[in-house]
């Protein structure tokens, strides 16, 4: 450890279909998420190979750093809305952040 990290937050990572991007962003912003990072992703899972060279079969990775209550809220909301019909996986990690004021 460098001693620079000062506060604990959760890193919530979501891998899902890229065509959900707009809907998902609207959803998490409505829940109070102030910042997130989205990148194109590819890989293999229950849905087979997701090759990421064409809109309908590509994935995105959404990363959100926030406090525990908000992470819980986002997780439960996304689970309720997308688990049934969409390709989506999520996980949560503990992270230490350098500037806590940047993350709720």
């Amino acid at each position, binding site marked *: 450890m460098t001693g620079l990290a000062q506060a604990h937050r959760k890193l919530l990572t979501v891998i899902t279909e890229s065509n959900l991007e707009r809907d998902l962003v609207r959803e998490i912003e409505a829940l109070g998420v102030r910042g997130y990072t989205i990148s194109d992703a590819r890989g293999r899972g229950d849905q087979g190979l997701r090759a*990421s*060279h*064409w809109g309908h*079969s*590509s994935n995105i990775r959404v990363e959100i750093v926030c406090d525990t209550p908000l992470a819980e809220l986002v997780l439960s909301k996304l689970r309720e809305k997308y688990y049934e019909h969409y390709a989506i996986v999520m996980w949560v990690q503990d992270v230490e952040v350098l500037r806590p004021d940047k993350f709720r």
Partner: protein
Amino acid sequence: MLSGIDPIVLFFALGLLAGVMKADLRLPPAIYEFVSTLLLLAIGMKGGIELARQPATGLVSDLILTLLLGILLTFLAFFILRGLGRLDRANAAAVAAHYGSVSIGTFAVAVAFLATAGIAYEPTLPLLLVLLEIPAIILGILLARGVQAGTPWGEIAREVLLGKSVLLLLGGLFIGWAAGPVGLEPLAPLFFDLFKGILAMFLLEMGLIAADHLGGFRRHGLFMGAFALLIPPFFAMIGIGFAQLMGLSLGGTILLATLAASASYIAAPAAMRSAVPEANPALSLTAALAITFPFNILIGIPLYQRIATWLMEMPA
């Protein structure tokens, strides 16, 4: 020598082969986006230039007939899928939306085909293309969900009307009409002279994409395979009938037949995925991309040309 075959079709075959053999060939997604943007603008502008030369006549009745055609094709597909294919309501509606709507890639190949054959067509066809893309998607959602509260119609309208294809085709049409043939002269080398080269790149990528979707039927395989092969010529005949009602030329008739025969793989999948999430997207995409699209560009378009020529040359 394969002198009878348009070389652009061979690019599709190359992409398909490379994809099936899992060769190390991938075009960057940005290239695909760029190439399809160029195609959409070029098709729109071509129509716009012609409209500037000679104003369209009888446009309103053509537009109404086109809307009716879109609705008819979607209903037909839906009832065939429900009745013969025993698909559940959501899947039947989603597939029907794809087949009632249109594929711009197929249209572009037909345009190139007509150019090679030296057959002219009405400048209003790009407008009819835009109009034929939309009703099937809305009807598909209605068939799947009924008129129920909570359907995000605003979002769906936004997605369909501000989708890339509608925006660029109408934008190109307007630019072509506003600038006219002389004004667009400086742009001709990129958009018109290179049209076939751009189309070849597009088809190479389409071959790779189609290969990815082969083998996407886990259920309903035999029925869906037959559906994706037999619906295009059947719908093309209906398209020819509507073209006759509109009094289109031979070129216009071939293009409308091709549009009726084609299945959407851009606008419809996106709209269906958000509005009818319970439908299996692999079912529609495999049928539209891996079967119907290759069928139309390899066999369909020349076939529709022959049938339309034969019908229109018959003594009345």
